[in-house]
């Protein structure tokens, strides 16, 4: 139960930011940040002389901001593309972290595996005690605080975020600094990654930021709706993923990501507005519509001419309009169904209705 609640809180915190990462085409920054915090974490532990939560948090935050600044700086040199800048900075940071662990922390429990996957299974063991009173798992407070901070940020700066996301140029003209919004967002992504990854691991943080928001992006065109959907899909993945993990006895983090992935692919296929199936049907509908219009116009053109009989033969349609025979069949079938044409001994004749529609088409 405590695992599920932690999972829900973290997924909501991540989804709130993820929406803007997706829209601002910076999804991979979250991947970079979540890996690059390793050396900061190690440095924090080093100075605190032990796995101290606060020192680790601070170090990780510094490392995250260093990463963001380095990527920006590299991009600004114009020598390196944005994606290459990311692809080179975060492995360097991660390698530095692994190096530091090997050099100074052989005996400290800081497993790079744990950094990657986290141990949400153990959240119930780190509890907050004040005096002797048990106030529940620490992760409640960390994840709850993250949710609150992120929610506060996007409510207070909603207008600025929206403007900077959809029209950075206008935002700059109006005097809102895109620079400020960018770094504020990156700082929050860092804080959220750091806060979340101790319980769920780097990969789950990335997944929860990107996947639910990407699914939501396929389902709606409205920003508030997208934020809500992303949070909802994230929370639902946490609940169902936990169930799945229990059922097959596997990693909770992995199961949550898998469920979120299933939501994404479902949205990709079945979304009523942007899904592949809806898109295929739209294209098919347009194909039939265009075919119908061509047929009506063709018949209308030759109505009353000498060659009308020839022009209105089924076979002729294939060669004149360059239609495959089965497509011609289909279009004529649809046209007959809608009462636009009639077949009289192998010839097509426009009905009154069909003639009227054909004439309307010719107006343009």
């Amino acid at each position, binding site marked *: 139960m405590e695992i599920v609640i932690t999972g829900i809180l973290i997924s909501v915190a991540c989804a709130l930011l993820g929406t803007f990462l997706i829209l601002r085409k910076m999804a991979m920054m979250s*991947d970079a940040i979540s890996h690059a915090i390793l050396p900061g974490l190690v440095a924090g532990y080093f100075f605190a002389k032990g796995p101290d939560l606060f020192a680790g948090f601070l170090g990780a935050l510094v490392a995250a901001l260093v990463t963001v600044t380095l990527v920006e700086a590299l991009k600004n040199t114009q020598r390196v593309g944005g994606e290459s800048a990311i692809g*080179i900075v975060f*492995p360097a940071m991660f390698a530095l972290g692994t190096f530091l662990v090997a050099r100074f922390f052989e005996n400290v429990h800081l497993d790079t595996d744990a950094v990657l996957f986290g141990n949400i299974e153990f959240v119930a063991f780190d509890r907050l005690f004040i005096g002797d009173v048990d106030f529940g798992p620490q992760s409640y407070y960390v994840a709850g605080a993250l949710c609150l901070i992120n929610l506060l940020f996007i409510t207070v700066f909603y207008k600025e975020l929206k403007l900077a996301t959809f029209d950075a140029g206008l935002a700059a003209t109006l005097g809102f600094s895109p620079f400020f919004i960018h770094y504020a967002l990156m700082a929050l992504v860092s804080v959220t990654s750091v806060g979340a990854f101790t319980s769920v691991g780097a990969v789950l943080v*990335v997944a929860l930021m990107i996947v639910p928001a990407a699914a939501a992006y396929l389902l709606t065109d409205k920003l508030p709706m997208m934020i809500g959907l992303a949070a909802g899909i994230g929370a639902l993945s946490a609940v169902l993923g936990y169930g799945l993990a229990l059922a097959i006895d596997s990693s909770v983090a992995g199961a949550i990501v898998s469920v979120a992935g299933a939501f994404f692919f479902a949205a990709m296929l079945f979304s009523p507005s942007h899904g592949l199936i809806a898109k295929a049907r739209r294209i098919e509908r347009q194909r039939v519509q265009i075919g119908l219009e061509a047929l009506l116009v063709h018949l209308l053109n030759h109505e009353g001419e000498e060659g009308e009989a020839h022009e209105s033969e089924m076979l002729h349609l294939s060669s004149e309009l360059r239609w495959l025979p089965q497509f011609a069949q289909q279009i004529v079938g649809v046209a007959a169904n809608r009462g636009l044409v009639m077949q009289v001994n192998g010839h097509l004749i426009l009905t009154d209705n069909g003639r009227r529609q054909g004439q309307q088409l010719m107006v343009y």
Partner: protein
Amino acid sequence: MNLLTDLIFDYTLRNIALGAAVLGIVSGVLGSFAVLRRQGLLGDTLAHAALPGICVAYLLTGSKSPLVLFLGAAISGWVATLVLLRIVRETRIKEDSALGVVLSVFFGVGIMLLTFILKHNDANQAGLDKFLFGQAATVTAEDVNTMTILGVFALLVVAVLYKEFKIITFDPNFAASLGFNDRWLGVVLTSLIVVAVVIGLRTVGVVLMSAMLVGPAVAARQWTNRLEAMVLLAGFFGALSGVAGALISVSEANLPTGPMVILSLTVIVIISLLFAPQRGILWDIKRFSKA
């Protein structure tokens, strides 16, 4: 001098250095195309996407031979490529988000399978994660042989299709107008990157793989404006950092090889970015301060 003789005669060191060098050459060459095609993060996604393949290959065959696991990794990397292309081409999701989605979902599924194997099979699974997080110290001669065969194959394909790759890299529209199938060539190029990634998993691991593709190419780009030179130089830089990383990690006890390879590479990249003639950042600063 001692190190040099070790490099030739010491079994472990020779395998580590050879493995890292093969990886460096192959990823340097293929990374050049990836970077120029602005697909620098593709390697990162494909490396993560290999995990479920490794797990499924093990679940199906129960074998841990490098060839079987490499094959599993390659197949799931390839499936990830196709899924990625589909998402980018047919939905409104942008490439950046698509990379993130494929990366995290494949990896999440992989983690789920890995823990499943961990809990349900006997201790025999130990070592699966070596194929993911890279443990160069345990690279065997059999691993090196498999990597070399894969690497030579990939390089041969690049040699044969060099002209085609060059044209789809710089002007895909022109390539299409000449009648080259740029979509198919793109898939071939990406599949070769999958091969490079598969070689790299064993030595440097998932997280560091992206740097092995991007780093040598970015460094090489600084020194030349010609693709031929860039490709060769990137291969050289890759091999250099591989061998240097292996040597450093052995000379100093307890240093992991993968990270040392990446840190050596990072040094090469920094030097190239700063000091390369013409494109070096330092010359910019000098020019500005004079003006």
